[in-house]
């Protein structure tokens, strides 16, 4: 009886592991472990704030910027460094960075935020990235909105093996809700893909 239960548990674990590995991303050779997502955090280059009243802030601009940094690092990591995104299946969790009212629109504009425009890639590694955050405080000193200026550049190989550069830039408007920061608008956002060696300088959308 115990042996039977043990076999069932082992089988369940094996099935679960297989299921987790299902839809194995990229062009991993059969039997090789799927590549894992590289850790990524935007370096916080510049933090500034705008106040409309003399009230001291309830949360420092640095703390707000750190929260925005965490959200956007996760979003860009998911969009460009997650092997599921390389395989053309960008995780849906990415869109939860956007406010509910903006989510559908952002998904429609998905190619500006993801690899949707390039298709499959074998790998991408970050080459440069930067993040500036400006925080607006309301009259009572609460953070009311933030504008993040994002630059993200990565290089790697397409599914076909061609070397490629990806440059994603954006001005993002974020607002807080339920203790989290959500993107409620993007005055400009673009993702540019170019062969390595060619210029892939940022080019924003039309504000």
């Amino acid at each position, binding site marked *: 009886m115990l042996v039977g239960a043990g076999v069932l548990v082992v089988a369940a674990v094996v099935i679960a592991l297989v299921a987790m590995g299902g839809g194995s991303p990229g062009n991993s050779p059969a039997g090789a472990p799927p590549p894992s997502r590289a850790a990524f955090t935007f370096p916080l280059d510049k933090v500034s704030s*705008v106040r409309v009243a003399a009230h001291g802030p309830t949360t420092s601009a640095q703390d707000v910027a750190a929260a925005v940094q965490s959200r956007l690092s996760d979003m860009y990591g998911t969009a460009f460094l997650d092997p599921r995104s390389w395989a053309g299946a960008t995780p849906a969790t990415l869109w939860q960075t956007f406010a509910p009212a903006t989510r559908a629109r952002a998904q429609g504009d998905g190619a500006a935020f993801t690899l949707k425009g390039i298709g499959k890639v074998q790998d991408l590694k970050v080459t440069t990235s930067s993040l500036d955050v400006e925080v607006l405080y309301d009259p009572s000193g609460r953070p009311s909105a933030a504008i993040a200026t994002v630059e993200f550049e990565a290089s790697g190989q397409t599914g076909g093996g061609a070397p490629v550069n990806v440059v994603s830039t954006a001005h993002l408007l974020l607002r807080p809700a339920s203790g989290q920061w959500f993107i409620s608008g993007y005055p400009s956002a673009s993702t540019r893909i170019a062969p390595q060696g060619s210029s892939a300088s940022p080019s924003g959308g039309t504000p």
Partner: protein
Amino acid sequence: MAAAAGVVVARGGANEASAASPSPTPSASGAPIDIHAVHGASYLPALQGKRPLFILLIGSGAHPGQSVQGSLSDSIHLLGINLKSRRATILGFPRDSWVPIPGHGSNKINAASVYGGPPLLVQTVEQLTGIRIDFYVRTTFWGLTNLVNGVGGLNVNVPQAMHDSYSGANFSKGRHHLTGRQALAFARDRHDFASGDFARSANQATLMQAALAKFHRLFQQDPATLFKWIAVGYSQIQTNVPFPMLLDLALTATQIPNANVNNKVVPGGGGTEGTASVVFISPAARPMFAQMKARGYL
């Protein structure tokens, strides 16, 4: 978008902002492939609503050192915004307009704020036009001066030569970059115009249009302009617009093209009431009010 091995990306698509020249790259098979693509997008939330939004813009005549409470309103404009079509009208009311003021008989419209501050002026304009006003924004002589200085001055097309010692206006006809003090003089001068108060009211709205044009230009260069302008504005106004909505309003303003903003003045004619020189609003104003109420713009 993506295709067979080697061929990576097609350019274009609904979100494409621009596309660089194709740059052929040899594929594994040696055939050139095009992996140049730019996907750009822009989206800003804006206020939504079935009915137009109306905001009364009030310029108090209080000078530095004088109390704003109980001061005359030297400049009165009703801003109507059609949130759906992104069109707007700034409708000016000559300050000497002879109108009924709720609870105070008839008087010049600018007296309403003396009797009851912005709320009574709002009520007066509502009664006159039949339009329900959502919010008011009030500034002062020095508030306007600081606002204009705070945004680095405004470029204005001066419609005719203005040389008026009362207001301090001293401009040749044509385009000028106005400092805060000059903008105030431009907004106050009525002696240089045959249509006096009507031209002055239109000039005041011209300043607002100039501010919108500058806001658009700077926002396009740097979206953080939004915060700076809100901070400058908030420090120089009194308003019942909730702060979060100010941000929404500013975002909405980024999406109203200048060409979609009309500058109109309520029609009327000069006359006297007792010994006072006043403006009688023309019956032709009624259909304007009706149109403004229905769609938010003229």
